[in-house]
Structures are given as structure tokens and as C-alpha cells.
């Protein structure tokens, strides 16, 4: 294990100008106008990324994650602190930011490669592979200004992943091209992981973090609030999101509803595959509220098994203690431990009112021969 990214005490301050004039004439005529405010985008961030590690960087808008990423890539200088990097770094901050639209795809491959810090000879060696990956053979000598936006990002992505960086920094750009191309991109990232390269991925999507990352870092208000296993970091992230929502909630509903506990009438969370299961949920509410109850089931490796909301029919909460029952007619899961998250969302399904991450864990016992998550009961016979 070698540290490839070492972020040490990094802080970044921005000056925000209010109606400042960016011209000499205005400054001379009105020297006093405009005021400046200092904004702390990052404060004292510390973490390390080793080779062979894929780290997700999560946080909501304005949490400083893009600033941190740009600082690591060297686009921004930290105000204080230091970042030490080992190996080549390729950043996918904004695909095709370095393209010159007047030039052909071919010329742009070389130009973009040079911007990422790779030599002309180095690009020569992988030129065919880049063209191949981008699937733009026919258009490679066409000026980039005639490309569609999909072609544009495909070319940029192809260059960035083909230069085989030791560190790949990705900022929410995996939504590239059609589904097939997206899969190709994910496959390439998987290959990078197998080769022991480091990947730093910034995203809003918890699912993407679960899918790809080994570890997750959560930023909030420019501070690092969690750094650890994906599950744990995601829990902290969600709770913070909820905490923030409560702060900005003026109706006062959110702070009044909490999910107290999930329990099993038998007292045991062990269940055999194929059996039924009943769970009791206790919710306390200070006001009457009508919303949807949501239940999520995850594997320990972070794969979402199921997310359900009682078929969309709302539950009516009354002031005081409320009890809900959840009935699984048949648990189709295979051997393993599954984590359960529970929450209340509004009837339109876009605001989380209350959430409890890791409310319970169930252990499924299965003694058959199937492997995986779900029991499919496949029958195989010779015909």
C-alpha cells in the first residue's frame, strides 16, 4: 500500500465580491463601491488515498466537494495546507473543456493529451485505442464543432481513460453517452480498479458510490464529517441531509417525527429463507401527518435489494406514538445479513420527513445450494 493522494490540512477561502467592478475605469471613478466577503469553501481537510483504492466523495451542493477535487487536480491552489500526489493524474472535471472546436478530432486528441500532461509520442502509441474506444473512426478528421454533444464527451472520455493515469479523478461525468457506452465506461473503471489504480469519484448518487467505491468521504459545509466504509459514510451523509432539511423546514413537521425503533415480535431478526416475517415499526410524531412509509433492504456489500413504499398508499400518523406493521409474506433472500433503512417521505415522494439508516439488520438462514442474493428456485432437468 502506497499513499498516492495525501491531503494535509487543506483549507480554501474564496473572496466573494458584491457588485464589484472589474474595470479600471470604474475603479478609478468609484474607488469605494463594492464589498468583499470571505467564504470558507474548505476547512482543514485531511485524508489519504492509497493505490488500489476507489474513494467516493459525497456531499450535497455547496459542500465543497468540487472545490476539494479541483484543488487535488491542481486547478485551484489551497489557501493553506498541502496536497502530495504520486503518479500521473487524469481529471475528468468537465469533459472536453480543453477542446478547440475549430480543430479536428485527431488534433484535439493530441491537444487534450498534452493538457493532461502526456507527450505526443505517448499519445501516438495509444491513438488507435482512443479512437476505438470513442467509436468515432469515421469522424476523427472532422472538426469538433460538427460533433454532437454525445460524440464530444465520448472523445474526451476516451482520451482521459486511455492515457492510463495512475490516479483517475471523476466528477459526475459517468452519465456519458447511451447506456451501452456508460457500461463501457464503468467497465473501464473496473479494469482500472483491478490494475490497482486509484480512483476518486465525486457524485451525488449513493447508488454509484455503493456500486464502485471501497470507501467514502463525506463533506458538509467545507468540513470532512465522515471518512470510512461506504455504508457508514452513507449513513452519516443521509442523516446530515435530513438534519439540513430540518433546519430549512419552516412547517416544523420534520423535526417532530422520528422513527424510534424497528422490532420483531419474536425478538429475533433471524429468519429462514422462504419463511414469512413480521416487523413492528415505532414512530413518534408531535403532529398529525400523512405521508408514505419507505423501507429499504441492502446487502452488506451495499447493493440495494429492494426499496418499497407500501404501494404508494399513505400512512396517517397521529400525535403521539404510532405503530406500523410490515409483513413480508415470503423472504426470498439467500444466506447473509441484510440491513434495513426506514423512513417517512411526503406523499409526492420528494421530501424526506424522517429517516433511520440501519434501523435493523436481519439475518437470513438458507441451507440450499443456491449462491447470490435471491432464491430463484431454478429447476434444471434433462429433456
Amino acid at each position: 500500500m502506497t499513499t498516492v493522494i495525501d491531503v494535509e490540512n487543506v483549507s480554501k477561502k474564496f473572496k466573494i465580491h458584491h457588485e464589484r467592478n472589474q474595470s479600471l475605469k470604474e475603479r478609478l471613478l468609484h474607488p469605494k463601491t463594492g464589498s468583499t466577503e470571505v467564504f470558507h469553501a474548505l476547512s482543514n481537510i485531511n485524508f489519504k488515498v492509497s493505490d488500489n483504492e476507489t474513494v467516493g466523495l459525497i456531499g450535497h451542493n455547496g459542500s465543497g466537494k468540487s472545490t476539494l477535487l479541483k484543488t487535488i487536480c491542481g486547478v485551484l491552489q489551497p489557501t493553506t495546507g498541502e496536497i502530495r500526489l504520486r503518479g500521473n493524474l487524469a481529471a475528468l472535471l468537465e469533459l472536453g473543456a480543453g477542446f478547440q472546436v475549430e480543430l479536428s478530432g485527431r488534433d484535439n486528441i493530441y491537444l487534450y493529451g498534452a493538457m493532461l500532461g502526456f507527450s505526443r509520442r505517448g499519445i501516438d502509441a495509444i491513438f488507435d485505442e482512443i479512437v476505438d474506444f470513442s467509436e468515432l473512426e469515421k469522424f476523427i478528421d472532422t472538426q469538433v464543432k460538427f460533433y454532437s454533444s454525445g460524440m464530444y464527451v465520448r472523445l474526451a472520455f476516451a482520451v482521459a481513460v486511455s492515457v492510463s493515469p495512475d490516479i483517475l479523478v471523476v466528477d459526475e461525468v459517468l452519465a456519458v453517452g447511451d447506456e451501452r457506452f456508460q457500461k463501457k465506461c464503468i467497465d473501464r473503471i473496473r479494469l482500472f480498479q483491478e490494475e490497482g489504480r486509484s480512483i476518486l469519484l465525486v457524485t451525488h448518487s449513493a447508488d454509484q458510490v455503493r456500486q464502485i467505491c471501497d470507501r467514502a468521504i463525506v463533506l458538509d459545509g467545507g468540513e470532512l464529517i465522515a471518512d470510512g466504509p461506504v455504508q457508514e459514510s452513507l449513513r452519516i451523509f443521509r442523516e446530515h441531509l435530513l438534519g439540513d432539511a430540518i433546519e430549512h423546514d419552516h412547517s416544523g413537521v420534520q423535526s417532530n417525527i422520528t422513527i424510534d425503533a424497528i422490532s420483531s415480535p419474536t425478538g429475533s431478526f433471524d429468519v429462514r429463507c422462504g419463511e414469512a416475517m413480521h416487523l413492528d415499526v415505532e414512530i413518534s410524531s408531535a403532529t398529525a401527518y400523512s405521508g408514505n412509509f419507505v423501507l429499504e433492504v441492502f446487502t452488506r456489500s451495499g447493493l440495494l435489494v429492494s426499496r418499497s413504499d407500501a404501494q404508494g398508499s399513505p400512512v396517517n400518523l397521529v400525535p403521539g406514538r404510532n405503530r406500523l406493521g410490515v409483513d413480508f409474506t415470503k423472504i426470498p433472500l439467500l444466506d447473509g445479513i441484510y440491513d434495513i433503512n426506514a423512513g417517512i417521505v411526503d406523499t409526492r415522494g420528494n421530501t424526506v420527513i424522517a429517516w433511520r439508516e440501519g434501523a435493523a439488520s436481519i439475518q437470513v438462514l438458507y441451507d440450499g445450494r443456491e449462491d447470490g442474493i435471491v432464491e430463484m428456485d431454478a429447476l434444471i432437468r434433462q429433456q
Partner: protein
Amino acid sequence: MSDATSTGVERRPIEDYPVRVVSARPGLSTRLRNLADRRELLTSLVSSDIRIKYKNSALGIFWSMLSPASTLAIYYLVFSFFLKNGIPNFVIYLFSGLLVWNMFQNSINAATGVIVDRAQLVKKVSFPREILALANVGAAVVYFAIQLGVLAIFLLAVGHQPAWGYLWILPISFVALYLFTASVAMVMSAITVYLRDMKHLMEVLLMLWFWLTPVVYTYENSLAAPLHRHGIAAIYFLNPITMIVLTFQRVFYVSTTVRSTVSPTTVLHILPTWPVSTYFYFNLALAGLMIVLFLVSVTIFGRLEGNFESEL
């Protein structure tokens, strides 16, 4: 220990790579090293700059030769037949000065707004930002070389010999010109981020600057003469372009005093009558000063660079 990779290229173990440091304010030596490391990017940017300019023309780079050639031809016609100022071969004098001036002016005009114009790139991709300004200077150097070629062809055509004994000073002079141009280009590109109207101011300043430099008129007819009488001719050389222009004129125009072609009895003083050693020492001292200026400019750029993000 190495393993085949996605690209089939052997990969060095990660421990072998040097550690790079991103810190608050990289020192001068770090900045220079970063610049040197990214010279491939500089050449890429220069070549793309030139390609874009001539991309959609069938004659391509030929246009860039046509423009100075036609300028030279028009000056030749105008000063030989219509605006006779009595200076023989005035067009050579004029063009050797313009060569230097064009390199300076083209660079500064292009570089002043370059960081603002390419804000998207500056905000998204990591590279030493000075390179954008230096690429503009690099493109100007290419045009300078083309113009020099046109001048050489012209000299051959009219059978005019340059001052061979002075020719070797030109590289020193050119280094001074390059460093001065690069320094001003870098600093102006950074200042424009903060003061957007710098571009307009610069146009006016460059016009003034041009007429303060002995390109169209002769050195001996310039402000230098009255300044010299008061013993302060040195002031005239505060403009670094002057010394460089004089050197180029001395090399290509050759004569320091000539007989007027209008009235043959009049003797015209054109260039200072310094020996070759004076030209050498002046140019050497200038180049030395310009190295210092360049280092100072890289430092200034580094200071201004810190807040680009919040200004762009």
C-alpha cells in the same frame, strides 16, 4: 514488478513515481520546473493556434507569408515613388524595425485577454496558466520567423548585403526580445482578469509605444538627440524595444549615415555610430536584465493567479 495494463503498456510500480506537491504558493523554482515540464503543451498550443488561424484556407500557412510580403511590397512602392524622404532603401530600414515591433505587438494583443477568453479551460484543467500567454508569444515567434524569411528573400532579390560582422548579435537581441515580450504578455494576461478594460487601454498604450520607438523615423531624428544634448540619452533606452530595434536595423539596413537621394549634398544620420562591441554589450546587458524581468513576471503571475477562480 510490472503488469500489463488496459493499454498494454508496461506500468511502473507506483512507488517509483516522484511525489508532486500542490501547495498554497509554489515558489519560483517550482513554477519554472512546472513550466519546463509542460513544454509539450506549449508546442501543442502554439501549433493549434496557427492551425486554427489557417484551418479553412486552401493556401494555409502561405497566407502568413503573403501578408508581410505584400506589406513589404507596398512600402517599397510607397517610399520609392510617392513619399520620398530621401533615405535610400528606406523600406529595409522600416521593415527590420517592424519585424521586431510586430512580434511584440501581436503577442501582447493576443495575450492580454487570453486567460479571460479561455476561462472555461482555466477553471477545469490543471496546467501552468502562464502557458496560455506564452503560447501567444510562441505563435508570434513563428510569424516573426516567417517575416524574417520574407525579409531575407527581399534582401536577396534587391542584392542588399546585411552587416555580416553584426549578425551574430541578433540571437542575443532576439532572446532579450522574447523574454521582454513574454514577461509583459504574462503580467498583462493576469492583470486583465482583475481589470477587464485593460485590453482597450493596452491598444492605446501600444500605439503610443510604437511611436516612441524608432521604427518609422530614424534614431538620430528621434527624441534621443535632444536628450543626448542634456546628457540623459539613457532615458530613451528605458524602452527595451529601442535597443533591439536598433540592433536589427543595424544588421539589416547596415549604413549609419547616408546621402539623401533627394538632395545629394545632404548627409542623413540614421543610426548611432557605435562599434560592434557596444552593440554586443548593450544587448548582453539587456538580455541579462530581461532574464531578471522574466523571473519577476513569473512571480507576479503566481501572486495574481491565486484568485483567478473567484474572478473568472
